[in-house]
């Protein structure tokens, strides 16, 4: 990796205090993103992938709180900033794209007004300059007749077009990092393909790094440089996309890849990981995956593995440890 990563997450812990004790939602999550890099974060529901995104942009829903670790943006800690300081960073340095394009836009304002407001909040430009910039952004995201569409309200756009507006909003202040949380999950496949290629192209052009959170391995394969696979609030495996997909080391990644119906290989039965991900209040001792793991041995049940070098990737699994 590069000398100074754009984003560095070190041993991040997120807790949810509840009446029945504290739930550990993220446990010792570490990774980094280089400038201009696209990192995919993949996992099943409840693995903590969206939570990692919210923790980074400082939008954890209370009572969730960061209980340990650090988040560094270009070498500066941002996890302990006061609310107002963090608000300036959001939008200016970190842009965010959420799953549902309808709820991330204000239905009462035209998209132009929302874009202009975002631009003028973060950049010292005049109203008319901001408007010109907004039109240019809408054009870049492939919205036809942007000069006219800028004065329309969100409900006048289709789902795919709204997500384009949201991408324009995220890019409005030229942030260095975009956190995209399931940006295509609410969209149809034909629209998904358009949005994914748009996101990738625009981020390359604007030099923005992306943390792409999704449950769709296909989207990851298409878009990302590296991928982190999460399981039960921990990173199970991280590495270059091609290596994680073709030569996974962690048994969970192996099972996850095998359970995806393939367009190329014909199989009578899909590979199956029995059981389900543990609930947060019942994460097993040792490796969180041990009750479902086909290769489990004694050490897995007692001692928790850290990320260990496993060829091209790093996997949290005792199996890959050189002996």
């Amino acid at each position, binding site marked *: 990796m590069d000398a100074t990563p754009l984003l560095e997450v070190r041993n991040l812990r997120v807790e949810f205090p509840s009446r029945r004790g504290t739930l550990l939602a993220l446990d010792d999550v570490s990774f980094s993103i280089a400038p201009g890099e696209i990192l995919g974060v993949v996992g099943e529901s409840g693995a903590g992938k969206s939570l990692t995104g919210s923790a980074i942009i400082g939008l954890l829903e209370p009572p969730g709180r960061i209980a340990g670790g650090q988040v560094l943006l270009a070498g500066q800690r941002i996890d302990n900033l006061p609310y107002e300081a963090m608000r300036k960073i959001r939008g200016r340095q970190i842009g965010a794209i959420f799953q549902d394009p309808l709820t991330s836009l204000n239905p009462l304002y035209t998209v132009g007004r929302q874009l202009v407001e975002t631009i003028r909040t973060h950049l010292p430009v005049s109203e008319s300059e901001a408007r010109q910039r907004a039109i240019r952004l809408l054009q870049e995201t492939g919205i036809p007749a942007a000069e006219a569409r800028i004065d329309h309200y969100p409900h006048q756009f289709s789902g795919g077009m709204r997500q384009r507006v949201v991408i324009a909003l995220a890019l409005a202040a030229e942030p260095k990092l975009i956190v995209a949380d399931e940006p295509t999950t609410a969209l*149809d496949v034909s629209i998904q*393909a358009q949005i994914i290629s748009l996101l990738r192209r625009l981020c390359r052009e604007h030099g923005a790094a992306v943390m792409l959170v999704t449950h769709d391995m296909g989207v990851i*394969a298409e878009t990302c440089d590296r991928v982190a696979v999460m399981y039960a609030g921990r990173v199970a495996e991280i590495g270059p996309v091609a290596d994680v*997909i073709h030569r996974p080391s962690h048994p969970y990644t192996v099972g996850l890849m095998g359970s995806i119906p393939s*367009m190329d290989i014909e199989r009578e039965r899909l590979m199956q990981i029995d059981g389900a991900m543990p609930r947060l209040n019942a994460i097993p001792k040792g490796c969180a995956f041990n009750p479902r793991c086909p290769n489990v041995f004694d050490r897995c049940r007692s001692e928790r593995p850290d990320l260990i070098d496993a060829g091209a990737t790093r996997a949290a699994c005792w199996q890959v440890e050189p002996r």
Partner: protein
Amino acid sequence: MTAPADSAGAPLVQVDDLAKIFDVSAPWLNRVIDRKPRQFVHAVDGVSFSIRKGRTLALVGESGCGKSTVARLLVGLYAPTRGSVSFDGVDVRSLDPVQLRTLRRRMQMIFQDPFASLNPRWKVLDIVAEPIREHGLVTDADEQRAKVGELLASVGLAAADADKFPHQFSGGQRQRISIARALATQPEFLVCDEPTSALDVSVQAQVLNIMKDLQRQRGLTYLFISHNLAVVRHVSDEVGVMYLGRLVELADKADLFAQPRHPYTRMLLDAIPDIRMSGRQRTPVQGEVPNPLQPPTGCAFHPRCPLANARCSAERPVLKAFQGIQIACHAVEEGRA
């Protein structure tokens, strides 16, 4: 309870020119004041297909293409505006209510959302036993319990789970309860409306495996509705591709995936992310599904179609046999594709 001795390969379900039109007009007073016309959505517009015994037909398409409406028409949750559904050679319209009830026992449905399709205030025992009680198949309470235990075991759950409530189960387990309930009347035909699209991939694999095992063991016939072509490829024997209420291509799975002919089918296949990163050549997808209230003239796909010409925008192509498959496309027929 056993099916009549039929020659292998006879169609179990036959659908002819099925159509459903929904009235989506504004209320009468608004129409009078605003001088708005009545508005209709042709959700399903002349769909014909048949499914042979023990086979799986998958319907694929994007949101709003009418695939779920077809599913609901088949099991009788909607009444068709036009066209007919025949089950085992009998036209459903010709049946009286008593006969219909008997027929219902032979077809069941699995819904998309495992959180909405189970009554949260009922125990699993009552949920799974409801069809048995409703059809009076088993009346003795102990026998019912034994039967439910058997059904739960067949989908990989424990008999003891019968005394739990739905909220005690995960999404994948709930979908198994749905399957157990659907199997309770020993149906021959299951309509599965996106049964795995609300599930995570590893759980989806579990449910798909169970569905395939059950099909093999019990000789079930499936209509499988999905928007996910990779899942469709895994489960189906035949595939119908729908666009704005009509079938545009209907072919054997092997043919459809080896040589997709309709430009829309090709576009759908090209839109699937290439997970193995094989470097497959793809053409970028263009445009969006048009508003079903104002469908385009001629072929509904022509505004997005790279092969469209004047004929496509004027004349609507009909589904007809072409080189062993069925397709509705002027370009393919004329050899322009």
